[in-house]
């Protein structure tokens, strides 16, 4: 089969690899009909995340058709149409029973590596480093799904892939980011980053009833898409984020702040801390660039909530924790507990409350994947979200 494989910084190739097969009775094999490139794939593309090995198959936003099931899988059959969440879950461990699927205790087959890095293991992820299990990803013609009886979202026929695919990651991620804010009708929700997750968070915050939603980015087409979703747009290269947020909230600051940017925040002369962060990152004095976190902590209203769906990998420098403590801020973070939300979100898609396909700007064949990674990274040609069609 064809698959997109990682070979190093900026080096992704579409190559022939052996087809996957059933390795465990709880496995299933999926024929991939659609997959997507995620913003967090760019951390691999730019080689900021450790734990990749040459030849690893990428991708964690995937859907398709079941073509083979293991003997222990009772709730799936050949021909079923499924979306595959990016988090692999056993469905039986203590964390899964609590709904904390992204920290499943069993699905990371390299749990010892994750425990060394984070103190305890987190769930296995598709196509996302050997720290999270080293599982082959879904930017391929076929995908082996471990723990397939738990790790799937069964979806009905008759709805196009484009409306359903993002149940795998960015839609529940944006949704969880907003849900973690426990939005009230009086709230201003400020969202840093109007990429795909930011766009989903904007719409989620609006649907959950925020009084006003503010989107902060510098890419004009992302900001125009944010406005279309009901957000007030701030281009941080043209105006002061802090001044504008204070103006929009009568000086009180937003009650809820969402970081949909993560470890690769922008670098610009207008923000000296970003230059220092990038220099420190280059000489390995810190791993991530936390400009957005600093700004959120500073601007958030006292007793507010910070929600962090953006991916961070390691160590951050100069975080104003004194402000977090003295302002009494609540911070909620985490990879998405995808299956916790998907029943509800699938219903909302079916009822027409939202159509997540609005975010797709580019569709291409799998063989064009390497070019699409570059286009997405450089935000060329109005690129906000790429969908790849392997078949």
């Amino acid at each position, binding site marked *: 089969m064809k698959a997109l494989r990682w070979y190093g910084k900026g*080096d992704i190739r579409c190559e022939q690899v052996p087809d996957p097969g059933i390795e465990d009775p709880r496995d299933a094999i999926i024929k991939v009909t659609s997959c997507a490139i995620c913003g967090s794939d760019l951390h691999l593309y730019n080689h900021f995340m450790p734990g990749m090995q040459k030849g690893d198959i990428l991708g964690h936003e995937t859907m398709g058709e079941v073509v083979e099931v293991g003997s222990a899988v009772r709730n799936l059959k050949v021909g079923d149409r499924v979306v595959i969440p990016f988090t692999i879950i056993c*469905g039986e461990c203590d964390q899964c029973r*609590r*709904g904390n699927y992204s920290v499943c205790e069993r699905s990371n087959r390299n749990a010892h590596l994750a425990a060394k890095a984070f103190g305890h293991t987190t769930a296995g992820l598709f196509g996302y480093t050997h720290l999270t299990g080293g599982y082959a990803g879904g930017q391929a013609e076929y995908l082996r799904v471990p723990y397939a009886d*738990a790790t799937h979202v069964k979806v009905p026929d008759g709805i196009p892939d484009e409306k359903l695919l993002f149940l795998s990651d960015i839609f529940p991620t944006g949704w969880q980011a907003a*849900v*973690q804010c*426990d939005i*009230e009708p*009086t709230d201003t929700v400020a969202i840093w980053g109007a990429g795909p997750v930011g*766009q989903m968070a904007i*719409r989620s915050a*609006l*649907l*959950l*009833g*925020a009084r006003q939603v503010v989107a902060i980015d*510098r*890419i*004009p*087409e992302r900001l*125009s*898409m944010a*406005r*279309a*979703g*009901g957000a007030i747009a701030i281009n941080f290269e043209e105006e002061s984020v802090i001044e504008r947020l204070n103006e929009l909230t009568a000086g009180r600051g937003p*009650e809820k702040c969402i970081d949909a940017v993560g470890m690769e925040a922008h*670098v610009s*002369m207008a923000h*000296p801390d970003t230059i*220092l962060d*990038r*220099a420190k*990152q280059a*000489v390995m004095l810190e791993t991530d660039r936390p400009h957005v976190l600093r700004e959120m902590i500073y601007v958030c209203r006292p*007793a507010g909530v910070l929600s962090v769906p953006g991916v961070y990998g390691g160590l951050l420098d100069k975080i104003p924790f004194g402000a977090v403590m003295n302002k009494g801020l609540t911070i909620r973070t985490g990879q998405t507990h995808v*299956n916790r939300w998907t029943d*509800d979100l699938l219903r909302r898609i079916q009822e*027409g*409350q939202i*159509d997540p*396909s*609005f975010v*797709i*700007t*580019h*569709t*291409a064949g799998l063989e*064009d994947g390497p*070019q*699409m990674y*570059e*286009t997405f*990274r450089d*935000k*060329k*040609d*109005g690129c906000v979200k790429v*969908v790849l069609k392997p078949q």
Partner: protein
Amino acid sequence: MAHRHRTRSHARPPASAEALARGLGWFSLALGAAELLGARSMARWLGMERHESLIRAYGVREIATGIGILAQKDPAPWIWGRVAGDALDLATLSGALRDPKAHRDRVAVAFGAVMGATVLDVACANALSGQEPPRHRRAVDYSDRSGLPRPPGQMRGAARDFEVPRDMRIPDALRPYRQPRRQERPQPSM
């Protein structure tokens, strides 16, 4: 909604950025040698005699950075290293601008020169890192991409029927708006 799309491939950074990086590498070597060998006269010219050793140390730093830029396949981290060095230089010169013993007019000239170099360094590092300034890109209008069946104003609160799980609620004491008593959300089930 989606459109088929092809782009030409150019994984490498622009040639102009690579040429600029090489130029900055040679500039680092030259400046480093001057600081290392001429630290005393440089310190005297600036009126910063007490900082002669510091200037020499900065010279070593410049030489190391220059070697890194010219020797490594990917010069971007080393150009960012130059940016960090610029920050140090500017901090040192800022101190001298307030020092009555320093020749402040000459220090101001040096400060301006370092500022110019910093702008070049950041532009070069951004170009090498693929962070093309947005003004060079073609903006696309996505004002028709709401994803919502009705205008956003009419969709506000359409999902208020969703009950935030207990572990993600804010404490009642911090709640500015009193909602009707919520029912407990059932624990997730597989």
